Each structure stands twice: as structure tokens, then as C-alpha cells.
């Protein structure tokens, strides 16, 4: 049975995409296929999570080739959580894009691309093979390339040039790192590599050298300071459904990999690497949040916040205690949901107000109270106001930091969260509270406009936002399940023997 449930998160979106390709010109059919795919993906990943939770780490050796020789798919709690998060975000974005995207874009492969992107994400999360990881990364990356450029408007093109070039370099570094690891140890299976690395006597230094390439490659992909420049340049440029999905999910996948590799493989010479990560995480938080504070565009503020939040997730890895890693895991899941939600909200605001620029917006508070409420929840969750979800992650990280005496970093992280509040309230002030700048259109008239034009559409667009907000509220108000899952996941991560045994002793 585990053979099936481990490949389902890959096969479902893949088959969905293939079917969509067969019905290339028929949007209606594609929509049906998409909904079916997303629903079954949700179910499959939820099942995967529950199985992993009950039965421990699941593995399947693709092609029935024993562990170090073939490619092994491995699902532990962390990876299953990521898969679930991707499915949840996927379904939300999918529903949003039913009406939130122009048909022209949909006709040029949006649905299959989205599905393949999900497949790439799931692949990265589930694979237990270093090179296979690279391949899945490329799958998700090329989907991102295309999605970001889809439509070819000026900002999109400009953003994608930077995105493509820099991520190409990142992939190359990743590949170089993988090559080095094979060149040093002669294996690609992560579990076996873990064994080999721990047994390696004379080439600790070399392995650490290889890990630098992973650090930089994945650091670029997850937008760590000083490697994040591509993100604020590109993430806000595509249509919001695409932004939301990519912004919510993809950088976290980079971080997932970073955590996976630096807990499983590169555990040597931590006295060199971890301080680096500490500094990087602090700077990432600060620079990201300051960047956000400077922005005057809804989406750009959100984009810079991604960077800032990445700092928190990295912080957990840098501190490297069970609590810290659990904090990172919780934070990743929380952030995936919240970020997607906020981007979608910006999309709804754009749809009803026709702008992303704060200066041109206003008054949403009055005529879209539900949206305003959802924004407050998501925004303050992002800022880590308790009892919303962001708080728990922040709490775990801060506690872990204090426990190991990283007072400076904790102070930084807490100050950054103040600045996060600052920029979130900036949006709130400008978009929701402020009077509408266009004095010729009163709020009522604007409402009337919407009513006539596409009220059902707007309702439909609210739906995924509401879904995500409920999810955020759930993991915030009833944090225990996710927190304890994160704890167990982090235990699995830090006790590599469990992973190694699950893969190699079958």
C-alpha cells in the first residue's frame, strides 16, 4: 500500500496535467480535471500524512531497486506536512484561478503548469535521492519560470529575466554540490550518504566544502540574505493567482530542502556552518522587513515579507535544537498558508479596486468588511500576534533561541516582528481604513459597480481566501496538533537513524 500512497502525490498531478494537455483547448474540461485532481490530491496527501503519523517513515523504492541503487521515495512527517500544505494551497489557488485569471492565460497551459508545479514540489519533498531532488527542483523551477512569464507583460518579462538567470545559477550550484557529493562519497541516496558522511574520517573538510554549494544554491532558492534579490524583483509581477502560489510555496520548498540536507547530511563541522546561518537568518529578517517597510505596493510589501519570514525559518535551523527545528517547521507551514492568503487578498482587492498601489487604494474597510476581517486575521497572523498562527512559530523559535543563549538573534526576531506589524498596518491603513482617493466614486457607487459587474465572481474569489483564513485560524487557535506534529517531525529530523533505518533496512 505504501508504494501507492507515496507515488500518488506525484502521479495525481502528473496525470491531471497530461489530461489537461490532451484537452489543450477546452478550458471547461480542464477546469473539471483540475478540480478533480486537486481534490484527490488533497485526499491523497492527507492520507499520506495520517499514515506517516501512524506508521512512521514510509519508503518505496522506485523500480523495486534496493535502497542505495535506485531512487527511494521517503515520507516522514516533515515531508508529508509539506505535501499537505502544497495540496491545501493548491486547492485554494486553483479555486481562485477559476475566475481570478484571464482566459487568455488559462488557454496557454496555466492549469497543467500549476499541476506540474505541485508535482515538482511534492517530488522535492518526497524524494530520498540527492540527484532526484535536483530534477524535481528543476521541474518546479521551470514551471515557475513559465508561470511568472505567462502573459508576457512588461513587468513580468523583467521579473522573469532576473528570476530565470539567478535561479539558473542556483540550480547549477546545487548540481555542482551534488556532483561533489558523488565525487567524494560515491552515492546519491540520502540515507546512505548520511551513513557514509558520519563514517567519513578524512574528508570532513571536503564534505563541508560541498555543503557550501548546497547552502548557496538552496539559499538562493529560498531567498536568504544576501541571495534574495531575485525575489522582490519578480514575485509580484505575474497575476496574483500565480504570485500567490509561488510566493506561498516555492521559497519554503528551498528551505525545506535546506533543513532536510543540513539535518540529515551536512552535520559535520557545524561550528562553521551554523554561525553563518545565524548571521544570515538575522540579516534576512531585518533586510526583508526593512524592504517591506519601504514599499508602497501591496504585493511588493508582501514579497519583501517573504524574505523576512524566511529569516525566521532559517533561524530554527541555525539554532539546531529540537524545539528550534519544530519551530521552523511550524513556521513554514504557517507561512505557506498565510502568505498565499495575503496574496490572494491583494488579488481580490485589485479585482474590486483596480490597483495594487497603496496610494490609489482605500476604503475597502467600508464596503468589503469580510475581506477586511480576513485581512486582519491573515496580516496579524503573519505578524505573530497571538493567538494567531504566527505566534506559535515565533514563540517556539524565540524560546529555542533563548534556551541556547542566542539573545541577539531573538531580540532581532522580536524587533522584526514589530516592524512586520508596522508594514502590515501600513497596508491596513492605506488599503482598508484610508478614504478612497478617487473622490468621484463613493464607496456605495463602487459597491454598485461591483454588484452589477461580477458579484458572483467576487464571491467565488472570496472563497479560497476564506478557506485559507479558516485554516490559519485552525492552526492558530488549535495549535496543538500542528505543534506536536512539528515536534515529532523535528525529532525525526534530528534522529537521523530513524530515517536511515527506514530507507536502508527494508
Amino acid at each position, binding site marked *: 500500500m505504501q508504494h501507492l500512497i507515496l507515488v500518488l502525490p506525484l502521479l495525481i498531478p502528473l496525470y491531471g496535467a497530461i489530461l489537461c494537455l490532451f484537452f489543450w483547448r477546452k478550458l471547461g474540461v480542464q477546469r473539471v480535471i483540475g478540480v478533480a485532481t486537486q481534490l484527490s490530491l488533497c485526499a491523497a496527501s492527507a492520507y499520506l500524512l495520517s499514515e506517516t503519523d501512524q506508521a512512521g517513515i514510509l519508503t518505496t523504492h522506485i523500480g523495486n531497486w534496493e535502497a542505495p541503487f535506485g531512487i527511494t521515495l521517503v515520507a516522514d512527517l516533515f515531508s508529508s506536512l509539506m505535501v499537505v500544505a502544497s495540496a491545501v494551497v493548491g486547492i485554494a489557488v486553483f479555486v481562485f484561478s477559476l475566475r*481570478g485569471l484571464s482566459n487568455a492565460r488559462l488557454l496557454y497551459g496555466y492549469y497543467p503548469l500549476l499541476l506540474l508545479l505541485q508535482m515538482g514540489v511534492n517530488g522535492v519533498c518526497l524524494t530520498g535521492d540527492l540527484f532526484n531532488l535536483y530534477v524535481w527542483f528543476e521541474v518546479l523551477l521551470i514551471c515557475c519560470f513559465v508561470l511568472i512569464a505567462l502573459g508576457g507583460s512588461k*513587468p513580468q518579462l523583467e521579473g522573469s529575466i532576473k528570476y*530565470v538567470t539567478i535561479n539558473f545559477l542556483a540550480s547549477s550550484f546545487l548540481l555542482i554540490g551534488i556532483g561533489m557529493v558523488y565525487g567524494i562519497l560515491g552515492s546519491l541516496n540520502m540515507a546512505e550518504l548520511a551513513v557514509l558522511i558520519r563514517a567519513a574520517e578524512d574528508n570532513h573538510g571536503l564534505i563541508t566544502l560541498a555543503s557550501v554549494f548546497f547552502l548557496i544554491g538552496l539559499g538562493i532558492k529560498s531567498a536568504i540574505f544576501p541571495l534574495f534579490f531575485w525575489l522582490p524583483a519578480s514575485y509580484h509581477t505575474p*497575476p*496574483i493567482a500565480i504570485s500567490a502560489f509561488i510566493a506561498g510555496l516555492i521559497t519554503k520548498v528551498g528551505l525545506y530542502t535546506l533543513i532536510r540536507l543540513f539535518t540529515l547530511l551536512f552535520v559535520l563541522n557545524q561550528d562553521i556552518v551554523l554561525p553563518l546561518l545565524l548571521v544570515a537568518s538575522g540579516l534576512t529578517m531585518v533586510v526583508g522587513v526593512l524592504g517591506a517597510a519601504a514599499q508602497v505596493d501591496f504585493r511588493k510589501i508582501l514579497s519583501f515579507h517573504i524574505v523576512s519570514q524566511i529569516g525566521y525559518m532559517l533561524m530554527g535551523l541555525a539554532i539546531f535544537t529540537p524545539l528550534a527545528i519544530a519551530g521552523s517547521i511550524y513556521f513554514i507551514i504557517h507561512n505557506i498558508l498565510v502568505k498565499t492568503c495575503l496574496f490572494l487578498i491583494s488579488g481580490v482587492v485589485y479585482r474590486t479596486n483596480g490597483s495594487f498601489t497603496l496610494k490609489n487604494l482605500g476604503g475597502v474597510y467600508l464596503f468589503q468588511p469580510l475581506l477586511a476581517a480576513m485581512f486582519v486575521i491573515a496580516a496579524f497572523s503573519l505578524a505573530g500576534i497571538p493567538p494567531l498562527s504566527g505566534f506559535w512559530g515565533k514563540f517556539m523559535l524565540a524560546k529555542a533561541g533563548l534556551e541556547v543563549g542566542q539573545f541577539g538573534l531573538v531580540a532581532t526576531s522580536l524587533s522584526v516582528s514589530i516592524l512586520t506589524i508596522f508594514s502590515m498596518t501600513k497596508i491596513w491603513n492605506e488599503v482598508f481604513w484610508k478614504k478612497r482617493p478617487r473622490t468621484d466614486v463613493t464607496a456605495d457607487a463602487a459597491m454598485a459597480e461591483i454588484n452589477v459587474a461580477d458579484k458572483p465572481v467576487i464571491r467565488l474569489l472570496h472563497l479560497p481566501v476564506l478557506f485559507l483564513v479558516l485554516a490559519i485560524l485552525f492552526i492558530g487557535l488549535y495549535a496543538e496538533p500542528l505543534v506536536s506534529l512539528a515536534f515529532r517531525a523535528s525529532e525525526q529530523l534530528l534522529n537521523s537513524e530513524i530515517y536511515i533505518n527506514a530507507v536502508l533496512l527494508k
Partner: protein
Amino acid sequence: MDILLPVLVGFLFAAGLYLILHRHFFKLIIGMMLFGLATNMFLFVIGRLTRGNTAIIAGTDQVASEPFADPVPQALLLTAIVIGFGVQAFAIVLIKRVYQVFGTNDLDDLDKTDRIHEKYPDKASE
């Protein structure tokens, strides 16, 4: 050969990076390709090299007999080459479109999405 190819790899990397850092679109894409080639060569060199022996089981043998080339870097390389091609082909087309739309070939002219006050009209996307 143990010194020749590493040096070559270094040169390829250097040239690729230099062209990427060049501001011209066309040089950028050429640079990306060189960089990709360099990465592939690196991958090839880092697995140990054997002269003249393939990774194909010869004649009527059942198993490969030493010396034979390590097939693993080759297989990885193949995958990487193909993936690189996909990415690069897309990049070429992207650059062409960028040139068509912007009418410039200087990458420094593409600095607007990073600006705080972006110059692009606010209505380009949905």
C-alpha cells in the same frame, strides 16, 4: 588529464560568469549556456575519468568487467544536459521577447520592478 579538464572547467566557468555579468542580453544567454556547459563538464570530471572504456557491457558478457567507465556521472550528466536545454531554450525565447517588448539590449535598463515606485502601469495583470 587530471589537471587538464579541471583547468578547462575553471575557464568555462570564468568565461560563462563573465558573460552573464555582462550587461548585454545576448551575452547573458551565451553566458548561461557556457555556465551550463561548465557545470556539466564539472559533473563529468568530478566522477573519475577513464580513457576509452564505455559503460556498455561488451560482447556476450553478462556483467561489465573492469575497467569500465562509471555510468552514474554519465547518467546524471545526461539528465542535466537535457534539463539545461529545456531551461536554456526557454531563456532564449524569453530574452527575445524581452528585446521585442523593451527595445533595448542593455540589462541595466530592466531595473523597474525593483524600484519602490515602479514605472509600470498598475493595470498590466489580473
